C-alpha cells in the first residue's frame, strides 16, 4: 500500500497544527460557530444528535494492521470502544469530545492517517473496488490512480469551497463494485481500440434528494491526462454550480440544467487551456504510484491440490461450505482467495465493530493477508490475499470474532445508515429496521435460495444508506411526526446502474419486515430458475409486487 514520505508527513502534521489552533480559537470565542463550521467539517468533524461525530479518511478503503490497531486504541481512549465503517469506505467515531479531536488527529497522523476532507463542500475521499488488484475481471489495479487523485485533491487550494461536496470513484474491473455511476465523477479504466490504457469518464451521478445516474462525458481519456481533466471538471463546476440553494448545488443539477453535451464542451474548453500544464502525469509518476500496489509476495501453489483440499473441507463442514460459497471471492493468483468479513450478524448495527474486533481484523490481516485490510462500500471488511490452504483455519479464527456470518451479498448483508439513533437529520431510525429484517429472515437456506439481493436502508432522503441503489430500498419518512418507511424497488449501483422506484404509500416500522416478506414471496413465485430478484423485477415490473403488498384483506 502507499507509504507516506516526508512531504505527506509534513503536510499532515501541519494540518493537525492548523486545526489545533482553529479549535483553540473556537473554544476561546475568537472564531464563531459559522466560521468554525467549514473548518471542522473539512477535518471530518460533525456535530450530531448526541455528540460530535468524527469521520476518519480511509483512502480508497485500504488499511494496514498498524492503522487498525491505532484505530482500536483511539476508540478506547477517546470514544466508547467502537467504530463504524461507512459506505464511502471511511471510519466514523460516534462519541469523541470536541476538545480531543486535535489529539485524535495527531494520533492518526503517526500512522499515516487523517480526517481531511471527509466532510464539507470539497473533494472527498476517493473510493474504489474492494477487490482492487486481486479481482479476475480487472483490467488494471485502480489504486495507483486513486492515490494520484488523493494527492491532487488533498488540500487543493482552488477546490476547498465548492458549491457542494464532491465525490470521485474509480473502477478498474468489468463489474462495477464501486458504484461509480452514483458519484459526481466516475472513472472507469478502459482500453481503446488501439489497445491504449485510459479512462471513460462519467459525471453527474449522485443520490440524495435528486438521485441521478451519471452520464458519460468523455469516452476515452488518455492515462496521463487524468488529473488535468478532473481539474477542468471541478473548475467548471466551481464556476457554474449553483450556490443559491444547497439542494440544487451538486454537479448533477448543473449537468442536468446545461445538458451533458454542453457541460462536456465547457470542460473540454477549460481543459484545452490546461491539459499540457504541469498536472499532466508522467510515465515515471504512474510507475511510481503503481509500485506501491504491486503485491509480489505471493507463493505459488498447485491449484488442483488446494482446490481438492477445499472441496474436502467443505464436504465435511456445511457451515464452512456456506461461508466459503458466500464470503470468499476468486483471486487472480492461483491458490488465493479474497475473503469478506461480515460486520452484519443479526443484532449488530451494520458496519459497527468494537475495539477488540478492530484488533482482531489486524491480527487476521497480519496472519493471513500481508497485513492489509479493505473497507467495502457495503460496510464490510475484505482481506484480499488469503491462501486457500489456510481458509479453513481462517474461518475458524474469523468465527471467534463474530466475522464469519455467511451472508455476504444476501438480503441480510444490507447497507444501512446510522439513522435516527445517531443522526440529527434523520426522519426515522434505520438500525432497528435492519435488525427486524435480519431477525425475520434468519433461515440461511432461504437466503441462499433467494440469491444475491441488495437491500439498502436510509433514515432520510440524504440517502447515506444508498436506498436508491437497493434492489429493495427502504427510506425513512416523516408522516405527521411519526416514523414511516417507503419501499422502493429496482435500484442497482452496478454497471447496469438504475434507480429504485417508489412502490406506493409508506408503512409503519412494524409492518416493514412483513412487506419485505410479501415482496420476496412474489419473487419466489414468479422467478425463472436461478433468476435474481433484480432481474425478475425488470422482467415482470412493479405491478405484481404492488398488488401483493397493497392487497385489501379479503
Amino acid at each position, binding site marked *: 500500500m502507499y507509504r507516506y514520505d516526508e512531504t505527506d508527513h509534513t503536510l499532515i502534521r501541519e494540518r493537525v497544527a492548523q486545526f489545533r489552533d482553529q479549535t483553540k480559537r473556537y473554544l476561546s470565542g475568537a472564531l464563531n460557530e459559522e466560521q468554525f463550521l467549514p473548518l471542522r467539517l473539512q477535518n471530518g468533524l460533525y456535530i450530531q444528535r448526541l455528540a460530535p461525530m468524527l469521520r476518519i479518511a480511509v483512502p480508497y478503503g485500504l488499511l494496514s494492521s498498524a492503522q487498525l490497531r491505532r484505530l482500536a486504541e483511539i476508540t478506547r481512549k477517546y470514544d466508547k470502544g467502537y467504530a463504524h465503517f461507512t459506505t464511502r469506505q471511511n471510519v466514523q467515531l460516534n462519541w469523541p469530545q470536541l476538545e480531543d479531536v486535535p489529539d485524535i488527529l495527531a494520533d492518526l497522523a503517526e500512522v499515516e492517517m487523517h480526517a481531511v476532507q471527509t466532510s464539507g*463542500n470539497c473533494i472527498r475521499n476517493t473510493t474504489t473496488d474492494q477487490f482492487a488488484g486481486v479481482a479476475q475481471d480487472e483490467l488494471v489495479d485502480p489504486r495507483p490512480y486513486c492515490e494520484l487523485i488523493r494527492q*491532487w485533491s488533498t488540500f487543493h487550494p482552488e477546490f476547498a469551497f465548492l458549491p457542494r461536496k464532491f465525490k470521485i470513484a474509480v473502477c478498474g474491473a468489468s463489474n462495477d463494485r464501486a458504484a461509480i455511476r452514483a458519484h459526481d465523477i466516475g472513472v472507469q479504466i478502459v482500453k481503446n481500440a488501439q489497445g491504449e490504457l485510459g479512462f471513460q469518464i462519467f459525471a453527474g451521478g449522485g443520490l440524495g434528494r435528486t438521485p441521478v445516474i451519471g452520464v458519460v462525458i468523455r469516452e476515452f481519456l488518455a492515462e496521463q491526462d487524468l488529473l488535468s481533466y478532473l481539474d477542468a471538471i471541478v473548475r467548471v463546476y466551481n464556476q457554474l454550480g449553483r450556490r443559491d440553494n444547497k439542494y440544487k448545488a451538486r454537479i448533477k443539477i448543473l449537468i442536468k440544467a446545461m445538458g451533458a453535451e454542453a457541460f462536456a464542451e465547457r470542460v473540454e474548453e477549460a481543459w484545452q487551456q490546461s491539459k499540457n500544464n*504541469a498536472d499532466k502525469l508522467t510515465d515515471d509518476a504512474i510507475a511510481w504510484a503503481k509500485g506501491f500496489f504491486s503485491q509480489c509476495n505471493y507463493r505459488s501453489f498447485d491449484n488442483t491440490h488446494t482446490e481438492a483440499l477445499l472441496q474436502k473441507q467443505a464436504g465435511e463442514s456445511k457451515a464452512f461450505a456456506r461461508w466459503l460459497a458466500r464470503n470468499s471471492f476468486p483471486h487472480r493468483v492461483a491458490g488465493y482467495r479474497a475473503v469478506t468479513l461480515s460486520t452484519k450478524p443479526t443484532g449488530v448495527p451494520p458496519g459497527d465493530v468494537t475495539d477488540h474486533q478492530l484488533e482482531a481484523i489486524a491480527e487476521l490481516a497480519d496472519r493471513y493477508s500481508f497485513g492489509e485490510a479493505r473497507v467495502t462500500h457495503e460496510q464490510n471488511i475484505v482481506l484480499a490475499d488469503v491462501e486457500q490452504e489456510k481458509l479453513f483455519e481462517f474461518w475458524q479464527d474469523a468465527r471467534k470474532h463474530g466475522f464469519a456470518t455467511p451472508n455476504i451479498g444476501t438480503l441480510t448483508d444490507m447497507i444501512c445508515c446510522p439513522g435516527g439513533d445517531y443522526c440529527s437529520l434523520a426522519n426515522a431510525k434505520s438500525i432497528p429496521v435492519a435488525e427486524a429484517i435480519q431477525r425475520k429472515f434468519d433461515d440461511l437456506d432461504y437466503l441462499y435460495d433467494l440469491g444475491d439481493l441488495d437491500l439498502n436502508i436510509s433514515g432520510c432522503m440524504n440517502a447515506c444508506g444508498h436506498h436508491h441503489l437497493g434492489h429493495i430500498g427502504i427510506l425513512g419518512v416523516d408522516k405527521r411526526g411519526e416514523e414511516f418507511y417507503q419501499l422502493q424497488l429496482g435500484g442497482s449501483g452496478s454497471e447496469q446502474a438504475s434507480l429504485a422506484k417508489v412502490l406506493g404509500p409508506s408503512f409503519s416500522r412494524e409492518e416493514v419486515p412483513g412487506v419485505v416478506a410479501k415482496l420476496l414471496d412474489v419473487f419466489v413465485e414468479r422467478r425463472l430458475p436461478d433468476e435474481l430478484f433484480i432481474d425478475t423485477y425488470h422482467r415482470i415490473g412493479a405491478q405484481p409486487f404492488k398488488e401483493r403488498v397493497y392487497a385489501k384483506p379479503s
Partner: protein
Amino acid sequence: MPSPVNSHKTPAGPQPQNPAELIVDGAVVANDWHLLQLLGEDEPLPTVAALPAGKLILPVSLWLLLRQELLSRQQEIGVWLDSDESAELIGDHGAELPLIAIHFCSFADGRGFTSASILRQRYGYQGELRATGRFMQDQLTYLRRCGFNAFAFEGGAPLDSLLDSLQDFSESYQAASDQPLPVFRRRPLC
C-alpha cells in the same frame, strides 16, 4: 463566461469595504487605492472626467465600458470582480491592469479561488491580485496558493496576527500559482 456588459450590475452580496490597511506580499501596508462600489440602481453612469483622481479600483462592469478612455491612466486604474463575475471578463486585458481585486461576498463562496487561478495560470496576469470581502484567516494559505498576493481583510482581527496563516503549509501536493510543479514532478520517484 463573459456576460453582456451591464453598467448597473446587481451586487452578489455585501460589497468590498476597502479598509485603510491591508496585507501585501506578506507585510501590513497602507491601502493607497480608492475603490468604487457598484452603481446604485438610479445612479447615472459616471463620465471618465468625473472619476476621482489617483489610484482607483473600478467595478469590472464599469471598467469594461470606459476601458478605452481610461488607457491614458493605465497605471492607476484597477478593477474588481464580484463573486459572481468570472475572470474571463478581463481575460488578456489583465496585462493593462496594475491591480485586480476579486471579491468574496461570503467565505463559503469559493468562486474567487478559481478566478484567481485562471488569471494567473491561463492569462499569465502579473500584477497585484487582491482578495477583498469576507474571506477568513483560515483561507489565507489557499488564497495565496491560488495567486493572491494582497489581502484586504475585513474580519476585524489585527492584520499582524494573520501573517502566520499565510504559511499554514510549507509543502503542497498540487501545482498552483505559488508552485509550478505538482509533487509527482518534484519527488524522487524511486
